[in-house]
């Protein structure tokens, strides 16, 4: 009950934040030089056509009227038409966003699976060989630029060994599964199409690992320092004084306490992966939101830029909310109020 009330409260609190973000993006995109009407009309349009177009697109209205109109449409699910792809932005997003989301989920999955255990081992075997190894791995991961690592992977696994595909989301010749979530792996499971599923997973591996390389490094280090901090605390000593074995103390007492800062970092990384996957998407020709956003910016496609910005903001806030709620679940001291 308390948890529910808290969540509802938090969701209501999102509204002013989102309005703030939309205003900010809207006005910033409006002050950027460049005329969307001219771009939409094409290079050979004459002044008259452009003027008409400006009128039609509402570009001559005062900015706040334009904003009000935009928000009105937004609430009806209408994000406007892309000036570049000439179809509703909503359609574009439906097409590109699931690809990015899928890639992000996959890379987060790898991050958690590898990063946290590596960090725990690092902390419990502090300064021993395992720790040194994890330290070097983490450093390499963090220090290596993602696109560069991606290219190396491509060269090695795709061009040289040919064991993994280097671009796209599916093998050529396969038709994507029926769109339910838009994420191929999940849709394939839902429709029971195992050939597609296998192909989708194989295609995720290289971009997923590339994207995860940085975050694994960060999570490993964070887990290590957080665990070391916890291992120094008095209640760990108490746990040992009760006769608990190292393993029991580590996993029964320390890990859950050490998870707090890790959860925050995970949330942040998730947001970053969503918004910042453009390089990885380019290297692996992944048809995701990152690439779409770059195009939108290049062609001053305001409706698209606005939509992407607001979408990412909403996701960021949502992820934060989920993390906060998880905090409350894990830590009884934060009693919703």
């Amino acid at each position, binding site marked *: 009950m308390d948890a529910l009330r808290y969540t509802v*409260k938090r969701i209501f*609190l999102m509204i002013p934040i989102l309005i703030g973000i939309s205003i900010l993006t809207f006005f910033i995109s409006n002050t950027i030089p460049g005329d969307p009407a001219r771009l939409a009309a094409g290079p050979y349009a004459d002044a008259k056509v452009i003027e008409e177009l400006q009128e039609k697109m509402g570009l001559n209205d005062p900015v706040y009227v334009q904003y009000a109109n935009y928000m009105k449409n937004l609430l009806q699910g209408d994000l406007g038409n892309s000036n570049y792809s000439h179809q509703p932005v909503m359609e574009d997003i439906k097409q590109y966003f699931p690809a990015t989301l899928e890639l992000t989920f996959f890379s987060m999955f790898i991050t958690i699976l590898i990063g946290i255990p590596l960090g725990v081992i690092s902390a419990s075997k502090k300064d021993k060989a395992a720790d040194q190894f994890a330290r070097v791995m983490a450093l390499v991961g963090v220090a290596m630029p993602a696109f560069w690592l991606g290219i190396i992977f491509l060269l090695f696994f795709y061009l040289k060994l040919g064991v993994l595909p280097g671009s796209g989301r599916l093998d050529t010749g396969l038709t994507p599964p029926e769109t339910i979530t838009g994420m191929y792996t999940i849709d394939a499971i839902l429709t029971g199409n195992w050939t597609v599923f296998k192909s989708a997973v194989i295609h995720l591996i290289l971009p997923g690992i590339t994207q995860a390389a940085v975050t694994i490094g960060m999570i490993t280090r964070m887990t290590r320092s957080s665990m070391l901090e916890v291992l120094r605390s008095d209640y760990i000593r108490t746990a040992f004084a009760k006769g608990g074995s190292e393993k029991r103390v580590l996993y029964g007492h320390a890990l859950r306490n050490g998870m707090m800062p890790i959860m925050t970092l995970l949330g942040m990384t998730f947001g970053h992966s969503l918004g910042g996957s453009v390089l990885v998407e380019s290297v692996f020709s992944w048809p995701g939101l990152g690439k779409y956003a770059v195009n939108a910016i290049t062609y001053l496609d305001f409706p698209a830029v606005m939509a992407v910005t607001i979408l990412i903001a909403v996701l960021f806030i949502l992820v934060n909310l989920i993390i906060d709620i998880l905090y409350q679940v894990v830590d009884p001291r934060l009693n919703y*109020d």
Partner: protein
Amino acid sequence: MALLEVKDLKQHFTIKKGFLGEKKKVKAVDGVSFHIEQGETLGIVGESGCGKSSLGRTILKLIKPTSGDIFFGGKNITHLPRKEMKELRKDMQIVFQDPYASLNPRSTVRTILETPLIVHGAGNRQERMKVVEGLIDKIGIRKDQLDRYPHEFSGGQRQRIGIARALTLNPKLIIADEPVSALDVSVQSQVLNLMVDLQKEFNLSYMFISHDLSVVQHISDRVAVMYLGKIVEIADVDELYRNPLHPYTKALLTAVPLPDPTKKRDRIILQGDLPSPINPPTGCAFHTRCPAATPECKMETPELREKAMGHWASCIHVHPEQSTKTKIHIS
């Protein structure tokens, strides 16, 4: 005329519980009145969270009082403008509990002691150095140690430096908030002795805050006992320790373990812990733990009344004529 006089002083903190949460009030200091004479030491004792530190900080106006009046040297300073208050701070200084945290680790002792003089524009460098050197001589630190940093000193030495810093501007009143609580006994006694000596030399007044009843007895002329933001008893030190009137004071005194294995006392063991100052009990705030409580205590809020000459207590069941019969012996 008393040097410091406090009348019905209140310090209510508003705390927000959770975000968007409703506001609650912590009545840290709730209607406290007392005075301190020139050259006198008033001890303030009470358990953790009863409002001792808040009282000290409110008197120094480090936090704004919620209501009530503070008189210093006969002048009402409750609403003094900032500039005049700064001038007045020369006369009222504070010494904190933690000798580690209260000295800037990146300043030498010389700088630490000189800074208050500079802030108040006292003398030229040479004159300031004379003051500083005179002070450290009194606190038993050598001249050649002046350019060292706080971490190069022991806890006791650091606390003595803290005291010296409070003394640089020749104050009349020092509010010492648990000045010896973080120190070992052998070092604690050094600091206490120093404080007594300095008091004699400069005719200082102390408001000495501590939870340690033995220490307070040692240094105080008069003692006030606080419980949940209120003074429940105040009297001359000998009178208070020999003839405590309030049930809480009695319990406190018998609870202190005596460093003498040949003395066994009947102890009054209180049930439970200090209630939260957010929702203090009705009536007499002590009634939830008081061994002498009666149903009336829940309804009636006792006031601090003079029960014997200079001996004030706030308990509806202590009557002036009865006061001599309730003696308890602690030694």
